[in-house]
Every structure is written in structure tokens, then in C-alpha cells.
């Protein structure tokens, strides 16, 4: 697919950029979901269903990639862009290409792990990784569905997927190469605008849970114990004070 496209005519470049940004963010989301799903391959939850989900996610990602690429390339080749818009476009470009690289890496890994753990063969052993649950929700998020798709995966999906994966990952690779050649974005001139550390999103994370529960939690227990003891002492002190005050009063 070539990257040529006519300018959208309507809305200013700003609107277009917004569109592109939305696309890139969605791509990011899908790639993240793909990453989450791919970690399950070969593990205890590996199944035809998983492969199917992987496939769906991958397809969506590729589609998004194509779309964004089209628009972004058009934007960036437009030399009449004003500098601030251009900078934004470049930033988006960097994000886009990095997501695509991540996707490519994940696809390669999935492919090679999938080869070592073919589901269709009878002697296939899966590694007991401790995973149990379903990944349907992740896929739903990836596909932007409100409800997880509960349809059964078609049989021997894994072989189909494996076969296609090889071709697809070459295609993604090619896309990345093409992108590099067509658009001359100097990476060292691109400066990130966001903060270094992202704001903490949640407090009750799973690792925190883990740390509470494990052996090292002695620290936490200690802390809790200390707090408890401190509270106790404080209350005792308060009681003593009250008593002394009472005594004074009475006495």
C-alpha cells in the first residue's frame, strides 16, 4: 500500500493531527494489549482461544497502523507545515514508529514461541506458569468492544495463525523500513514534551498486594506492628493522662 493520499480537503491541519493522534493512541492501546496477550503464549492458559485473540488483536493493530501511516506520511511530507504543527507531527511519528517496532518484536516472539509450543500436536506440553484466567477482557479492550467476544475460536486456529504470522511480520517489517525511507524525521531533534515520570494511576497495585503477602512483608508487618504499638502507647499515654488528671481533680 503506498502512502500517497490526497489531502483531506476539509478541516485544517490541526484537525487532521487530532485524528492522527487519536489513531496513534489507539494503536498504542492495541499494541499494549497484544503485549499482554503474548505473554501467555506457551503458558498454562495457552489455547486456541488465545491464539485467536492474538490474531484478532494483531489484525486490528495492523489496520490501525496502515491508516495512521497514510495520514501521517501525508502530513509530514507537506512542507508547508508551520513549525509547531510540524513538531507535533514528528512526535506523533516517533510514537507511531516505536509502537510499530514493539508490535513487530512481539510478533516475532509470538511466532518463535508458538513454533516451540504447537497446540495442535498431541505431545505438546505447556509450561505451568500459574496463569489461570481468561484474557477475553483484554481482547475486548483491544478491539474496543464493550463486551468480550465469547465466541469459540475456530479449530486449529493456531496453525493458521502461525502460518500467517510469518508473512505478517515480514510485512510489518517492510512497513517500518518504508516509513524510514519516505519520511525524514531526525530523531535527535525530537523532544518529548511529557513528564519524565508518569503520574501514579492507582495505589492498590498487584505488586503492593504481593509485597504485603510475601515473606518480605515482614517489613510491612513490622511497620504495621510498629504503628499498632505506637497507637497502643499513645492510647495508654492518653489514658494515663486522663487518670492523672482525674486524680488531680479528685485529689
Amino acid at each position, binding site marked *: 500500500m503506498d502512502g500517497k493520499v490526497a489531502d483531506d480537503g476539509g478541516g485544517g491541519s490541526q484537525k487532521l493531527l487530532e485524528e492522527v493522534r487519536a489513531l496513534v493512541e489507539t494503536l498504542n492501546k492495541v499494541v499494549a494489549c497484544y503485549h*499482554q496477550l503474548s505473554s*501467555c503464549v506457551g503458558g*498454562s492458559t495457552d489455547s486456541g482461544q488465545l491464539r485467536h485473540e492474538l490474531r484478532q488483536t494483531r489484525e486490528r493493530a495492523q489496520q490501525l497502523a496502515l491508516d495512521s501511516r497514510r495520514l501521517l506520511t501525508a502530513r509530514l511530507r507537506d512542507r508547508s507545515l508551520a513549525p509547531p504543527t510540524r513538531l507535533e507531527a514528528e512526535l506523533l511519528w516517533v510514537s507511531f514508529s516505536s509502537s510499530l517496532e514493539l508490535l513487530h518484536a512481539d510478533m516475532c516472539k509470538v511466532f518463535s*514461541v508458538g513454533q516451540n509450543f504447537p497446540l495442535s500436536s498431541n505431545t505438546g506440553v505447556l509450561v505451568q*506458569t500459574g496463569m489461570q484466567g481468561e484474557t477475553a477482557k483484554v481482547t*475486548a479492550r483491544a478491539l474496543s468492544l464493550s463486551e468480550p467476544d465469547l465466541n469459540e475460536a475456530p479449530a486449529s486456529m493456531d496453525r493458521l495463525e502461525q502460518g500467517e504470522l510469518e508473512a505478517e511480520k515480514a510485512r510489518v517489517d517492510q512497513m517500518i523500513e518504508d516509513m524510514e525511507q519516505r519520511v525524514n524525521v531526525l530523531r535527535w531533534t525530537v523532544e518529548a514534551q511529557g513528564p519524565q515520570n508518569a503520574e501514579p494511576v492507582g495505589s492498590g497495585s498487584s505488586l503492593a498486594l504481593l509485597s504485603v*503477602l*510475601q515473606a518480605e512483608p515482614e517489613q510491612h508487618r513490622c511497620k504495621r506492628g510498629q504503628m499498632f504499638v505506637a497507637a497502643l502507647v499513645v492510647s495508654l499515654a492518653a489514658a494515663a493522662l486522663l487518670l492523672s488528671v482525674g486524680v488531680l481533680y479528685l485529689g
Partner: protein
Amino acid sequence: MTIRNVRDHGQRYRPRMACLKKVEALVLEMQDPKSGVKSQTQRLVITTIPHAITGEDIVAWVANRFNIDAREAQSIATLMVAFGYIYPLQDHKRLIIKADTSLYRFQTPYFWPAQQWPAEDTDYAIYLAKRNIRKKGVLELYEQEHYNNLHKWMNHKWDFIVMQAKEQYRAGKERKKPDRVVFDCQERAYWVVHRPPPGTISAMDYGLERLTDPNADEVKKKKTMDYYRRIVIFTQQCIMRSRVKSSVSLGAIVKYITTCKNHDPFLAMCLPSNPWLTDDTTYWELNMPNVEIPTKMRVERWTFGFRELLSDPRGRADFRLFLKKEFSGENLAFWETCEDLKWGAAATMKDKAQQIYKTFLAPGAPRWINIDGKTMDITVKGLVHPHRYVLDAAQTHIYMLMKKDSFGRYMKSTVFKETQKKAISPEEHKFSDAQLEQNAKKRKPNLSPIVLRQREEEEKARLAASGPMDITQLCKFTAPVPHLAVYTGICEAQLSHGRERQPPSPGFPTLPNSAACPSPISVAIDSTPASERKFEGQGGSAAAQFPSIAEVPLETRVSASARGPDESQLASQKSRVALSLSRFLRRGCGNASVLASLSPKCHSAMGGRVQPLSREPLSQPQPKRIANFFQIKVDIPPECRIYPIDSEDEENECTSRVRGTVKEIICPWESITKQDQAG
């Protein structure tokens, strides 16, 4: 110009990690529900997670599988943990197996170490950002440092990294709680393996990266006939390689050690004291390259072998002196010039090679060296297209000659014995601590190497100028020696008062070399003591009896130029001289130096004239000399017989008829056309 983003296509093979495949096979075996490792459930407060295994179970299984003892099984299991195939659930930072009830779990294949792909920095940055998102300030110090570094050099991607981290975090949230816990553990374990905390030994230190998989052949290559044939050839060649019996080589090592061990400052005390330890530089001063009196140890070293003698400048000087007395100095000179050619600048190589030929190799050359015909053939052929190593064969021959012959005699000679007697053996310094401190304070830097080099070159020039050129063989020449005679003997008498010189046997004809090369070299041989005496006595017509020729130092441009102006003076004196001189000049050998060597200077010094110009008929050259006659065609009149005489052979009575023609040494490559024309 686009700077390509370098992506790892998984094409780099890290051979040290080739063992990973075997570990993977082992891990898969452990999964077998029947014969694998028994798993249990890990109980956490809220939930339970299956597939936890105890350390002792793992170790027992490995021991059982390979039929080994517990300790070895433990180390194998530790290796599996170190590579990241199994991760500990408690104490996650220490990647070892504890053979007790501590729990472990298998890592998901996605996070297994891969031989082709390294762990990417982008992923690491995303992981750290994710942890920051979860809870701020949870990063360890080294992780924080990594994070800051990554932020600096991956700055352009940083928006993407933060965005991706957020997305991954949210995607992770879509999973059920126990799965989330497991995933987090897995990821954490992965990064402990691939970005180990500082101070820990990482099993991921994989050494070199290669572009081809060294194990690919074993697995996939088809074993065709051709493949086996190549293997057979390879092994045959291995067998055919020459080997040395270990008894022989070990014997050589032992011998070397026993001879040299007292000379090694590491192993034995060096006298007077080791400058590096005591800050006293006497040792270096006593062992300077051109010191007058060497130390006893140094002299002893010369006895170890010829190479030791030559490589020590002082030793070489001593040897040179000895050779001068023996009249075989040309050997050493040739060897040194060859070394100069080998190591010198490429620009001057052609000229140097020519010079060397004219000086040493050509028949009738002033300092003709005695090498066999075959080597001479090879050398001359090579000199047509000279290169750095063209004189290698000749040089080796001469080296061997010196080693086998001269070296032995040197060891027994008076020169050496005197040096040995005079050699000093310094007393050992015994510094007290206070003195050591003082020495340390008095340290001063060495002379700059530039200064040293200048000094070296001055020394060389001086040596060359004053140079005791040894007397090489007589070249029985039919050339009109006279005007070409170089009376270095006289000069020498003048310059080096009392420098000893051994006169050659009487009756040696003097044939100056018509080696009219740019370098002023003429072979001059002192005929007799008588002549010497005569020279010294009168400087008169004595020389008429026997033209004596002394040799001029090779680089005696100084003296040459000094004598230069007198050339005309000389020419005017003797008609014969003039005749040959003109002929000489016509041949383009107009180098003053040669003629100048007639040394008017010596003239004055002697108070007489140099008269090598006698045309005394000399006795016929002896036939046996012809043995050394070379096959090289040069433009010589047929009557002219040139036979260099071995300098050792001093009893030789050879004469030759002095001819009117000057023999000119023509380098073969120059005279190809002439010869062709001639015949």
C-alpha cells in the same frame, strides 16, 4: 540523509548462550504431569496461585534425572534460575536455588532468554515507567539511575514510553487478580535477570556476538558427500601439521629458564638496585646502550647466544670491533644495512637496495660478502624489483655465517676477554627507609625521547664519520687502482692515532674499487706493515711499491667532502691518474668521495704523497680464487679477474695485473640492455 533506526532482527548469535536450548528441553521435561516436578499452590491472603514448586523438589528431580549427587544437582538448578527459566517467589533478587521449602515458579516462554534477541532498552524503560505509575518511589536506586539515563538518551521516545506504560498498565488491569500478580512477578523476574542489580554476577554475560549461528551446522546441514569429503581433508591436514615432541619443547623451555633466570629482575635481584623500587637510577645508567664499560651481567648475557649479542648495542659494538680486527666487518655491516632496509622507510628503499648491491654484493664490490652462488642468484634476481625483504636470504646466510663462525671465535678472542675483565659488577644498594624517602623526593623525569633520539643519531653519525672501517678483502683488480685508492689506512693513522690495525699479508695487490657509486666506498687494503711504515715514515714513494688502499667508511661524507677539492690536485699530479681519472669520470663515477679518498688530507698528514698509483705488475691471480667468481655478467674486460679474497685468508699471495681499465660495478638491472647487446 536518514539515520536508520537500528533494529535487531534477531540475527545475532551469542554463542555462549547456545546452551539455552538444552535448558529449555530440561524445563519442558519438568512440566510433565507424571514424571515432572510436583507442583503445589501458593497461598496468598486473598487468592491462591497454582504451579508453585519447592526448591528441594527441583533439586531432587534434577538429581534423579541425571543420576548425580545433590550438590551438582543444586548447581544445575541454580543455573536454571540464573538464566531465568525458574524464578523464586520469595527473595526475588537472589537468583539461586535454596534446597528447602522456598517456592519457585516457571517463567512463561515469552520471557525466556532468547539467543537471538537482546532485552531491549525501550522495554526496560516502559517497565520502569509502569512501576512508577503503580506507585511512585518504588524504584530502587540503580533502577532510578537507569531510568534517568534512559530518559536522557531515549528522550525522543519518551512520550511514547509513558503512553505505552499507561496503556500496558490499563491492559493489565483487565485481567483477574491472581493473573495480574503472576504477570507482575514474571515481568519483575525477567528484568532481574536481564538488568541485574549492581554487584551481582549475571548469567546473561554472553560474551561475543556473532553473525552466524555456530550451532546451525550440526542441526540442519545436510550431510552430503561433499561435506564428508571436506571433513576428511581437514582432518588429514591436521595430522600432517608438523609437531614438536613435548620433551623437546619442554627441554628448550627448561634450558631457557635455567640460563636466564638470574637475569630477570622479577625473579632475581638486579644490581645495584631496582630503580622502580628504590628510585635510584644507577642501574639504568650503568646499562645504557652505549656505555663504555658494561656490567658483568650484561656481558654474561652475551654468551647466551648470538642473538643476545647482536641485540645489545654495546655487545654489537664489541663484536664489530672484533670483526674489524678479523677483517670480516663487512658481514656485520651487511647485516645491519639489511636490517635498516627492512625497517626503514619505503621511499628510500629502492636507493638503499641499490646501494647495498653496489657495496656488498656486486662482484668487485668494496665490501664484498661471501655468500654462495645460489643465494646470490636469488638476491640479484630479486633486486630487479626490490622490496623490503629482498635481501632476506642473503641476510640469513650471513647471520648464520657469523653465528657459526665468528661468534665462536669472538668468545675466545682477546677483545671479549678484555671486555669481560673490565666489566663491572656494582655493589648492591642497601638503602634505609630514610634514604628511600629521600630518593623518592629526588626523582626527576627522564630525558625526552626526542633528545635521546637526537643523541643516538649524532652518535651514529660520529661513528660513521670516524668509523673504523674494517679492512675487507682484497679485490684483485685489474683496475687502475691508483686514482681510486683510498688510503684510509693513512687517514686512519691520522685520525685514529694508534688505533690498532692489523696489516694484511704482504703482497696483496691493491685494486681500488671502481665502484663508483654515489656512496664513496672503495676497498682499500693495507698491504703490509712495511707500507704502513713507509707511509708513516716518508709518505713518499714508498707507496709506489704497493699501492695501498684503505677503506673508507661507508658514510664518510664528511671526510669525503673534505677530500673532495683535492681531487683535481691529485689529478694534476699524476698523469696516469689523470688518464684513469678521466675515464673514471666519464663513467660517471664522478663522486668526489672516491677520488677524494686519495686523501690529500692524508697526504699532508703524512707529509708525503699518496702514491698508490704504481703500476707495478702484480702476480697472477691464483686460479683457485675463481671459485668465488660470480656468474653475473658485468661489463668487465675479459682479462680482468675479480676475486674477492676471504679476509681470513691472509696468507694469500695474489697479485693481479693492474690494468688501465676501470671496472665499473654495474647493477645487473641497469645493464641489461648492454649485456644483451654485448652478447
